[in-house]
């Protein structure tokens, strides 16, 4: 029954199932191909929104906007998450891939679905953008393609749970799941909820597109966002799991308290689906009670979860560093961190930009009334590019720098470029998201080809500063795109033409291998004793004082931003 073949990883000592490894590889490669498609579209779109350049004709702008959304949010991210699920349920547990054939079947099903969708979008048969709100109608095969893709992904979540059961039964690990796998479990549970909503909405929409049944546009929006937003929550859970993983791999980050971190993951599962409601805050279909309850009371428990991880992840990193002797002052642990390790820098940028820009803007604009001054302006994509691109995509990139040596057993190509890639990407995205948000606060609409309104019956003159904001936004976007193309080149060249890693000797640096693997961040033998000492510190800031200071800076920024928005809202027309 158990015919799996394993190799033993020379760096980590873990057993790696050959089938699992192959599935991780193909999913990661397809994911990066989707990233390439999405990034090309991104460059063309950004050069169109830069009003002075205004590159694409209207038709191609809208078409490529749809391609960009689908390729990035769905294909890039979900294929990568499939790789994470295969990886977490086998390699991290020393376990085997229990259903390899089904794994391949689902992979090809997802590839087929993705190709159908891409084909129809590129050929102009699905100019309905990413959200495809009815009654705008695409070719029926567009919806069928999404259904096939979602079914494939659903099967992978099933394989993930099956792998966990088999690993438990075969006792490949003792006691509880490691925290990183636990986080992946929550991502998988949210994925099941999300994909079921996808099926609930896309199957009727497919039938509607064939003329077989009616479709209510508000019910579509309600259920579609339970797919559209919840799929971003898969990202959040997967990203946080990767934060814990990269912290461990790069600097030996510890888990401060399993109970706290795991409870925070549970809060995601329980409450995050409600977050989809904040897309409907200024919709005519739902009343104020529904809006307040779903978006605030429940969703804020998921916000709480993120605020907890926002403390425990950096605090665990700080502790990891302090336990390895970097104890100087409040921030000595940060100064002495391996900033040249792209896995580490990606991790830090992902945490910081996700929290400070994505998190603060997201919670604020997801407030029922504040949404009036935000809905469908550039503030909305300004927010989600900070979460899903600067947060999730950045974390996935950081993880890839470790997957290349660990799973593909290759050195990372263009190592010098790889070291600066996270700086380029995160820096570019930071400028992009901040200036996009500013432009949005002037009322500049998202998904709009021409804000000079040259063909409109009435002229609209935006504040001249908007042109400047959009130009800076575009420069940030192009910088980030350079970072994305650098990442793609590094990943593709490493995987297909990279040098094998060969024999690693601990303590000896090797070009193209991150320091977390050449200099494994091992703790001292008396680590528990040291940890105890840190925990018994008389300081009110606790064992991770630097992090405590940082989270209060975060909270202060959050409070200011939140109330500034209420102030701006109070100045607009009276509405009730």
């Amino acid at each position, binding site marked *: 029954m158990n015919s799996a073949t394993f190799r033993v990883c020379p760096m980590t000592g873990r057993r790696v199932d050959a089938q699992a490894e192959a599935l991780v590889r193909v999913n990661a490669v397809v994911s990066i191909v989707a990233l390439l498609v999405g990034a090309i579209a991104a460059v063309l779109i950004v050069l169109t929104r830069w009003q002075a350049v205004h590159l694409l004709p209207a038709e191609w702008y809208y078409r490529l906007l749809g391609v960009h959304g689908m390729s990035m949010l769905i294909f890039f991210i979900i294929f990568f998450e499939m790789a994470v699920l295969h990886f977490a349920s086998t390699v991290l547990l020393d376990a085997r891939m229990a259903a390899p054939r089904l794994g391949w079947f689902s992979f090809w099903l997802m590839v087929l679905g993705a190709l159908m969708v891409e084909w129809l979008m590129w050929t102009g048969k699905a100019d309905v953008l990413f959200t495809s709100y009815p009654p705008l109608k695409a070719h029926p095969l567009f919806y069928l393609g999404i259904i096939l893709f979602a079914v494939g992904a659903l099967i992978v979540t099933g394989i993930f749970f099956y792998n966990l059961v088999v690993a438990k039964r075969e006792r490949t690990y003792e006691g509880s799941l490691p925290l990183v796998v636990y986080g992946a479990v929550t991502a998988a549970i949210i994925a099941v909820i999300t994909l079921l909503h996808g099926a609930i909405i896309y199957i009727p929409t497919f039938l509607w597109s064939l003329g077989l049944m009616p479709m209510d546009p508000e019910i579509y929006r309600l259920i579609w966002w339970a797919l559209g937003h919840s799929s971003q929550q898969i990202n959040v859970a997967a990203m946080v799991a990767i934060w814990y993983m990269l912290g461990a791999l790069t600097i030996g980050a510890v888990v*401060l308290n399993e109970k706290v971190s795991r409870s925070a993951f549970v809060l995601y599962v329980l409450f995050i689906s409600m977050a989809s409601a904040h897309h409907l805050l200024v919709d*005519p279909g739902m009343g104020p009670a529904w809006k307040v309850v779903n978006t605030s009371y429940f969703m*804020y428990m998921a916000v709480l979860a993120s605020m907890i991880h926002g403390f425990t992840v950096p605090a665990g990193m700080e502790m990891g560093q302090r336990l390895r002797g970097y104890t100087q002052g409040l921030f000595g642990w940060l100064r002495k961190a391996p900033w040249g390790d792209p896995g580490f820098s990606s991790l830090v940028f992902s945490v910081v930009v996700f929290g400070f820009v994505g998190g603060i803007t997201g919670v604020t604009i997801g407030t029922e009334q504040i949404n009036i001054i935000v809905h469908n302006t550039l503030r909305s994509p300004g927010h989600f590019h900070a979460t899903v691109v600067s947060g999730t995509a950045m974390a996935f990139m950081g993880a890839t720098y470790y997957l290349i040596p660990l799973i593909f057993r290759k050195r990372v190509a263009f190592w010098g470029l790889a070291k600066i890639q996270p700086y380029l990407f995160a820096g570019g995205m930071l400028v992009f998201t901040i200036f996009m948000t500013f432009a949005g606060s002037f009322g500049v609409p998202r998904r709009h080809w021409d804000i000079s309104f040259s063909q409109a019956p009435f002229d609209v003159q935006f504040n001249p500063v908007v042109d400047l904001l959009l130009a800076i936004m575009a420069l940030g976007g192009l910088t980030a795109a350079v970072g994305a193309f650098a990442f793609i080149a590094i990943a593709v060249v490493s995987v297909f033409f990279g040098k094998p890693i060969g024999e690693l000797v601990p303590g000896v640096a090797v070009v193209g291998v991150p320091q977390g693997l050449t200099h494994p961040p091992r703790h001292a033998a008396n680590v528990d004793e040291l940890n105890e000492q840190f925990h018994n510190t008389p300081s009110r800031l606790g064992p991770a004082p630097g992090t405590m200071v940082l989270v209060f800076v975060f909270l202060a920024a959050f409070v200011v931003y939140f109330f500034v928005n209420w102030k701006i809202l109070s100045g607009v027309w*009276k*509405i009730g």
Partner: protein
Amino acid sequence: MPTAQSDTHTGLESPRGIWWRPAHRAEKTWVAIAFAWCMVLFAMMPLWHLKGNQNPSGIRRRVEPAAFYRRTQEFIKQYQVGDDRGMPIVAPPPGSEVYLMAQTFMWTPILKLEQGKEYTLHLSSLDVNHGFSLYPVNVNFQILPGYDYGLRVTPTASGDFRIICNEFCGIGHHTMVGRVIVVDSAGQEVVFRGGNHE
């Protein structure tokens, strides 16, 4: 084996023994503060319903697009005061029901409202989703076919405003611009806001 060798361990290792253990005081403090902040976030919304002047509640009901079209035409006939290149300009009395119809790629009619007076603005679409974005005030609402969103609005400044469609509605989406004129109590358009209209 990915099982922790000591109590202090990373997220890649299984914790030893029972992991439900008390958290450190510092960690508890942060969780408590974060929780309290989430309650503030929550409280602001009901509070604004009671004390604030901007709420997206409105009167919400289903409406057949054809019925909404007929109602808008009646409204135009009743209160039309002129036109701008064929698009009717409609000046309803304060306190009345006002109808604004979205369709690809136009807003009908042009509204002429009085500053400081309340109107019930009914928004709906005849075809696909549209976005109501009042420029330069930056007030935004989603408009769906089959739903009547009746918002009680009070313009707080006079001027010549624009309505931008900010939900993708088709290939001519970016040409969909409407107009709202707000006059002050003396009947004058004092502040020039939205565009360069003659």
